[in-house]
Every structure is written in structure tokens, then in C-alpha cells.
């Protein structure tokens, strides 16, 4: 573990905190560095790379290593680093984030591709809700079996996965809900917009369109017969 009195390098910090080689995960690296470069968020020491380079090596003050840990964890949920930083600085944003996790994430049975341990997630939510969560000094409970930043293809946070997932689910869910409520007209509209490979939803889609056509034919027939 290379660290010196100036602090600890970012790859070393990530290795120490999560046991991950940052150099092997480009997408993850692209998320972590902005946290360190962001002004005033972490205490960093810059050291010129030397040999005429204008770039600096970044070292993080050891006092802030748990803050980095927490920021990376929260990035697993909220990719946006601005939002993550706001959780540290702004109590309202922190409570908002806790509420989001409670409502959207903890109620789910699964988030595709992300294993979340619900007990730890609840501990994390409780911490965020508490009046003094000590976000900058103490490590939050880690609910991930593996950081989503590493395991998701292209998508780097739980929020992004949920958004991608809900775009498909919401249309399918709306279609089925309207159908079961008896609103064939609305169910049919949703069924026309839905593009899905889910065999369960496809069956509903076919059934709804068939019933809609039959109902339409029936209406036409009644119009001829009853007037």
C-alpha cells in the first residue's frame, strides 16, 4: 500500500477501500476522478508529474478516505456526481436521496444486473435519514455485492438501470393495468406502443388487440342492427 504523508493516490485508495484495480475499469475510473478533481469536495494534494508535463498527480488526504468511499457508494445509485456531492453538503438533498432509495429501490424485488442486500440498504437509508450521518468520516453500509459501476454494461448506476427498465415496464404495466381495469380502449393504445420481448407481456398484447378488434366489430354490427 503506497501512501505517503501527502496522502494516498486515487488508485491506491480504491484498492484499499474496495479491493478494485482502478486501471482495469475505465468507466469506473471516469466516475471516480471527477470526485477528486471537483473543487473543495475532497482534500487533495497535487504534485506535478514532472518531465515537462503540466498534469498533476492527485493524492487524497487520508482524513477524507471514508468520504471518498461513501461518494463511490452513492455513485452506485446516482451516477451524477453533482447529485452525489449535494448529498454531502445539503441536508435536503440527502433526505431526498434517502426517500428515493426507500421508495424506488428498496421496494423492488430485483433490479436487473444489480444485487442489492436489502438489510444493508435499509441501514444505509436510516443513516442518510439520521440527523448526523457523519458522511465525511464514517463508512456507510455497503448494500452492493458488487459495485454497479463495474457490473453493468454501459449503464453505471442503479438509477440508470431503473430508468431503462421502467421505460419498458411502465408501458407494459400500464397496458395490463388498463386491461384488468376493463378499459379496453386505453389498454389497446398502450399495446400499440409496446415493443417487448417479454413473452408474458406479448400474450397480453395479442389478447388485448384481439379483444379490441372483436369489440369494435360488435359495435359496428350493433350499429347496423339496432338503428
Amino acid at each position, binding site marked *: 500500500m503506497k501512501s505517503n504523508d501527502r496522502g494516498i493516490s486515487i488508485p491506491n485508495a480504491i484498492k484499499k477501500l474496495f479491493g478494485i484495480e482502478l486501471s482495469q475499469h475505465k468507466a469506473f475510473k471516469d466516475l471516480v476522478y471527477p470526485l477528486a478533481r471537483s473543487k473543495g469536495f475532497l482534500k487533495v494534494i497535487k504534485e506535478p508529474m514532472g518531465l515537462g508535463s503540466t498534469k498533476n498527480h492527485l493524492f487524497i488526504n487520508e482524513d477524507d478516505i471514508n468520504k471518498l468511499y461513501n461518494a463511490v457508494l452513492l455513485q452506485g445509485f446516482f451516477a451524477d456526481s453533482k447529485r452525489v456531492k449535494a448529498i454531502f453538503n445539503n441536508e435536503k438533498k440527502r433526505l431526498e436521496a434517502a426517500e428515493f432509495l426507500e421508495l424506488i429501490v428498496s421496494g423492488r424485488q430485483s433490479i436487473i444486473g444489480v444485487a442489492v442486500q436489502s438489510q444493508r440498504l435499509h441501514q444505509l437509508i436510516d443513516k442518510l435519514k439520521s440527523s448526523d450521518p457523519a458522511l465525511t468520516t464514517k463508512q456507510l453500509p455497503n448494500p452492493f455485492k458488487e459495485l454497479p459501476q463495474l457490473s453493468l454494461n454501459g449503464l453505471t448506476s442503479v438509477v440508470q438501470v431503473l430508468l431503462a427498465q421502467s421505460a419498458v415496464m411502465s408501458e407494459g404495466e400500464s397496458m395490463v393495468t388498463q386491461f384488468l381495469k*376493463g378499459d*379496453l*380502449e386505453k389498454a389497446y393504445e398502450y399495446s400499440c406502443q409496446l415493443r417487448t420481448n417479454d413473452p408474458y407481456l406479448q400474450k397480453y398484447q395479442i389478447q388485448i388487440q384481439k*379483444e*379490441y378488434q*372483436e*369489440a*369494435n*366489430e*360488435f*359495435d359496428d354490427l*350493433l350499429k347496423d*342492427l*339496432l338503428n
Partner: protein
Amino acid sequence: MFNKTLLFFTLLLAIMPTASMAKSPLLIEGCVELINIYKSNKEQRLLAAQTTSLSESLRAGYCLGVLDQYAKTEYRCRSDWFKRAKFIANYSLEDNPPAEDKLLELSCEI
């Protein structure tokens, strides 16, 4: 035990058709369904199909067909089909409704 259950169901099945036939004649039942379909059709688009079963719609078709045919053969029948269907449907609550011919005749006099 099994035999008893079987016997019970056999009896039940034997009674059921007579029970529904005794309830009221096909024409009256049919006109009841026809009025129901007419109402739901007016109430909301697509609703008639969703609230009508296959047998209900066949019954309704029977009523409509009989009314239509009767009006063609009886020059005295001037009331429209809806009034006549409603008139006949009202007999569904009576224990001893008139026979079909009589019902049709009466319905034309309203």
C-alpha cells in the same frame, strides 16, 4: 363417498337445464339481453362486447330476429322494435308469462 359426490353432481346436471328453461321462455330472455346490449352500447364504446357473453348475444339476436320477422308479417304492428323488446322483457319477472305468439301480438298493441 366418491359415489355420493358423483350422484349429487349427476342429479345437479340433470336438474339444471330444466331449471333454466322453467325460468322464462327464450323470447323473453332474449329481449332482456337485447335491451341490456342496447344500453351498454349507448353507454360507452366497446362496452357491449365486454359485458356480453356469447350465449347472451345469441339470445338477443333471437329476440331481434323474431321481432323483426313478426313485424314483417303483421301489418298492424307499428311500434318500433325497441318498445316491443322492452315490453316483452318486462315479462321476465312474471311467473306465468303469455306464450310467444301472444307476447308478440300484445307487443304490437302498445
